[in-house]
């Protein structure tokens, strides 16, 4: 493993990620988990910890933990134990959080991803089930705090890595890969703004070969951009401290996106004693092999496996395969387009290029894409058979996007009709092209002179003039060839 040093220091990072599980109801009650409701409307007697209430495990949350365990090649424990983490806080209704401590449900496993061309492997220590707390609202209440318990009892899977990560780039790549896995297998909606996927990074630095340095934990990193900024700042700060002769004190820190700095929330001295002990209200969680195998049988192809298949089956470069497997929706769209046009590389280019660009600029998700896979397939079919230039294809794509096609027609007929109507058919007749070229050369004597004097720019200008004169229908390669021949 190549180690990248920062001012002679090695960076060591471990991650703790809280993925909110996409169950309909809470982990130990039947209250709904939907985000954004009026405060305290999604909390039942159990969530409020009313006297006499007891927790009952949501099987859906366990099933999702099993899915995750299988996705990362971990051991799914046949027996795991819920424990109480005791501390007082107003948004923690019971005065303890139900979590897993000594025996978690998912043990071990790895997350693999590419950092540039290098395949990285981050080992997982564990993933355990636990409940979320509520929220304290400090605004809008003068001299008081409001408590919203809608989130209390929402199921979380806390995923903990070994300290295997060596740079902020790698940290972000790991987090993105993990995000991809949990959304791909459908256990988490991955919405970072709403707090569905929250990362804590444990960061320390050391001179190569030295034992691990003292770590500081950056809490609640809820965007990949802030994650990188926060880690970079933290690393620089720690190195500065050490270089100035100060020891790093173990602490929990928060990143402030406005200042770009991290600041300590609490230090080890005021770390609470959580008095963990097995929760007597919940028997050990038993998961038999049959259940695990049943979950395995219903799981779709994992992103890394699928990417490898795209490379061998369609001859795509690794980069394309990795990009297309960012989400299950994108991968499915790609395969449907290929199915329609049999042009994998062109399909990949279009999806990573025009389709992604249009989606991003409109802040749309793939599910909202107005161009169907069969329409895009029909369009690519016409590029593949030289009926349409790539550039002209974009005009057809625009028309499909804005719904100009006739719904009653087949996708291929729609595309062909649009090409016809817009007169975009590529000019493949060389005598017609030669005539246009001659006109352009006659009208642009200056450029011709410059080309002869060795100026490439002028040549490109001539190509542009020819394309323009052909109304974009000329085949650019053919234009190049004819121009070179004439000016040669």
């Amino acid at each position, binding site marked *: 493993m190549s180690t990248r040093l920062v001012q002679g220091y090695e960076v060591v990072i471990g991650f703790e990620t809280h993925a909110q599980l996409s169950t309909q109801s809470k982990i130990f009650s039947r209250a709904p988990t939907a985000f954004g409701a009026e405060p305290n409307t999604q909390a039942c007697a159990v969530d409020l910890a009313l*006297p006499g209430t007891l*927790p*009952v495990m949501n099987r859906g949350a366990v099933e999702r933990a099993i899915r995750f365990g299988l996705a990362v090649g971990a051991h799914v424990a046949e027996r795991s134990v819920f424990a109480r983490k005791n501390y007082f806080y107003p948004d923690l*209704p019971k005065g303890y959080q139900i979590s897993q401590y000594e025996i978690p449900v998912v043990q071990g496993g790895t997350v693999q991803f590419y950092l540039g061309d290098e395949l990285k492997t981050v080992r997982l220590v564990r993933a355990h089930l636990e409940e979320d707390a509520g929220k304290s609202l400090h605004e809008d209440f003068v001299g008081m705090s409001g408590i919203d318990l809608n989130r209390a009892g929402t199921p979380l899977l806390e995923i903990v890595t070994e300290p295997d990560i060596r740079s902020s780039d790698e940290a972000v790549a790991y987090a993105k890969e993990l995000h991809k896995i949990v959304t791909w297998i459908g256990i988490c909606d991955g919405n970072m703004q709403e707090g569905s996927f929250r990362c804590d990074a444990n960061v320390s630095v050391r001179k190569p070969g030295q034992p691990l340095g003292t770590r500081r934990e950056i809490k609640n990193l809820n965007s990949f951009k802030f994650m990188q900024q926060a880690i970079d700042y933290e690393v620089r700060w720690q190195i500065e401290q050490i270089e100035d002769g100060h020891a790093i004190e173990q602490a929990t820190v928060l990143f402030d996106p406005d200042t770009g700095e991290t600041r300590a929330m609490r230090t080890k001295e005021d770390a609470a004693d959580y*008095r963990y002990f097995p929760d007597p209200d919940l028997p050990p969680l038993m998961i038999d092999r049959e259940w695990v195998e049943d979950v395995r049988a219903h799981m779709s192809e994992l992103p890394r496996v699928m990417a490898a298949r795209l490379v061998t089956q369609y001859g795509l470069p690794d980069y394309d395969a990795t990009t297309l497997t960012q989400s299950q929706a994108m991968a499915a769209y790609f395969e449907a387009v290929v199915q329609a046009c049999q042009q994998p590389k062109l399909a990949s280019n279009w999806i990573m290029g025009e389709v992604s660009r249009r989606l991003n600029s409109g802040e749309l998700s793939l599910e909202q894409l107005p161009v169907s896979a069969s329409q895009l397939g029909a369009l690519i079919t016409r590029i593949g058979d030289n009926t349409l230039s790539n550039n002209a294809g974009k005009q057809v794509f625009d028309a499909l996007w804005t719904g100009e096609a006739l719904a009653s027609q087949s996708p291929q007929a729609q595309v062909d009709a649009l090409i016809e109507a817009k007169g975009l058919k590529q000019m493949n007749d060389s005598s017609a092209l030669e005539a246009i070229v001659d006109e352009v050369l006659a009208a642009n004597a200056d450029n011709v002179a410059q080309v002869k004097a060795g100026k490439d720019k002028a040549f490109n200008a001539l190509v542009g003039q020819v394309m323009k004169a052909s109304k974009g229908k000329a085949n650019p390669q053919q234009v190049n060839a004819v121009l070179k021949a004439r000016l040669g």
Partner: protein
Amino acid sequence: MNDLHHVSLAEMARQLRERRLGAVEVATHFQQRAAQHLAGPNAHGDNTGAFLAVDAEVTQAQAQAAQARLDAGQGGPLEGVPIAHKDIFVTRDFPTTAGSRMLEGYRSPFDATVVNRLAQAGMVALGKLNCDEFAMGSANENSAYGVSRNPWDLQRVPGGSSGGSAAAVAAGLTPAATGTDTGGSIRQPASFCGITGIKPTYGRASRYGMIAYASSLDQAGPMARSAEDCALLLSAMCGPDPDRDSTSLDVPAEDFRLRLNDSLQGLRIGLPAQFWGDGLADDVRAAIDQALAELKQLGAVVVPVQLPRTELSIPVYYILAPAEASSNLSRFDGVKFGHRAADPVDLLDLYRRTRSEGFGEEVQRRIMIGTYVLSHGYYDAYYLQAQKIRRMIASDFQQAFTQCDVIAGPVAPTVAWALGEKSADPLASYLADIYTLPASLAGLPGMSVPCGLGAGGMPVGMQLIGNYLQESRLLNVAHQLQRQTDWHQQRPALASKEVA
């Protein structure tokens, strides 16, 4: 019908079904008695202080509804029969305090499963019964709403923590009561007040709606005047509750009367050597010996067995129960419900004063013990060690049950003590729990059966302990004894008094 409060449950239910008795008439009779026994600082005269809350309208409405079902030829097995609930069970129709200032005026939006099941069986709720605060205590002297007194001698304790339940049944204020037992809280007050009470196997009755003291030990059970009455009640109370209580056993509801009349011929009664040690008072020993002699007459044989870790059950219990309690009681923080200190200056002040004001001394003591034994650096030495010994105690019982069918012994070392006698010395009352704690720690069913009077004319109870799910065996033994003897028929003078 002035002797209504001497009629057995089965008889009362039959007369109600045959409409020789009216549900409203029955309810009114007990309401009038209960109303004379409300706990409070000004309680005086013959008041046992057994009740914390009554509500005439609620009870009358329930009785009328029961009568309507009876008139329609419908209704459950206990339709129209009154019951009162230990104030540890949450109820929609009455306030629920758990005997604590912390929950003064608290109303639950739901009923405990046990309360609900008894209502489904047709029972009419008379009100809520006094108990030690959060079920912590063995004399009912830890109630924030005043002590409950023993109807046999108002200067003595009724036992605890279900002291109000035992006193109310013994004084004829209700034909039946619910209780909860964590370390003996059904059996010991039943013994002190001369009634019959059974704590079923852990997990038989749902804990949903029972305000938790020590979750791994808490178990609900009935308290009444005979084994037969208890069998009827227990049949209605028990059954799986998988959607609300994960520790509820997946064992179908059972009719616990079916084996009441089995013969005791050849029954092996195990007598643990450790239950007959120096600490056992002579009057208690003599009463139990008498009961054992009766059982031998019925064909039972006694065999010596060993429960070598009996003494250890005291430290084990007083580590594990406070550990769980310290966590279970964290929810009482002044934020969401219950008592909240006035004008807190900050969050810490809110927590500190709310909990200091809301919790009584014994509760605070157990929270501190529990917090200590779970703390970093002490957990292994206390909590883990106690868990290990708890498992050994359970396996000691399994060893003993290879040699016997049921185990018999005392419930408590003495008869009920005087009010105030042990309240200054918590350790002395902890030590008096020695005979009830082992079955609690093992999760085994145990019951208290009256077996005569001891010193000062106070009742003595014999404890019967069975193997897991052997409640019907225990009830069978107790019922056969009660067919042969009249100890369970003996009443304190107070129970025969007419209401003014």
